[in-house]
């Protein structure tokens, strides 16, 4: 357990950090002007030149590999609830880092989703 807990924290931080960085970067990029092919290509081109996307990609890759390592170290019943906690940690990150307003209703929704995902994933059919 001494190596599992630090790896779990590392996984959750990398996953949440990567998604928050991508969200922040995409807010800077802005939404596509239209859904015509040229406008979408321009949107992708601007997105790949955004530094926050390149912060997000290694963090998400690190979270993916740390999850694989966790599955080889710890029982699924430990890893799955920890991975579902991403929803809670991500919402806290969105509140304090992205300055999103998290209403009581949204908090309740996130908690229900977190519990639901834990139950679904523990059934073993992912």
């Amino acid at each position: 357990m001494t190596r599992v807990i630090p790896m779990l924290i590392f996984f959750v931080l990398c996953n949440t950090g990567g998604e928050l960085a991508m969200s922040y970067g995409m807010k800077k990029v802005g939404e596509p002007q239209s859904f015509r092919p040229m406008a979408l290509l321009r949107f992708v081109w601007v997105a790949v030149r955004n530094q926050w996307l390149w912060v997000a990609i290694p963090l998400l890759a690190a979270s993916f590999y740390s999850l694989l390592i966790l599955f080889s170290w710890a029982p699924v019943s430990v890893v799955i609830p920890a991975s579902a906690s991403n929803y809670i940690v991500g919402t806290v990150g969105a509140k304090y880092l992205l300055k999103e307003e998290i209403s009581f209703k949204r908090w309740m929704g996130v908690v229900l989703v977190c519990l639901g995902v834990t139950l679904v994933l523990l059934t073993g059919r992912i």
Partner: protein
Amino acid sequence: MSHEHRLRFKTLVMVLLMVVCANTGDLMLARGMKQIGTVVISVPGLQQALWMTIQNASIWIGILFLVGFTFCYMTAVSWADYSFVMPAGAFGYAVQTGLAIMVFHEGVSAQRWIGVALICAGVLLVGQTKPNTTNIGVLPS
């Protein structure tokens, strides 16, 4: 249609596309890997698996759908809150359960049904909140 309704509508459409792309991509990858068979962990085994993966149409279709998922996710968070898109994306687990019953004729346990019900209730609650609570386009570059 008001600005907020339009924003909510297009975000939910994008989340739905995300869910469809992610599920279809995963199914196609699973189908492709089943066609390839068990991968032997050795240098020649991995080389052979890589070669077969490159030649497998299902794998390429799966990758295409997962690229589509990434694009939809990036587009959705370009206008909507991360804390709105992320939990809404969990609706995919409900879709997977539907697919497990309708396509693969699998039995679904009570525990999974409760999980799906909780996810749907959570997504419904999140879906009723404002999709964007920050100012789009005014972040410093």
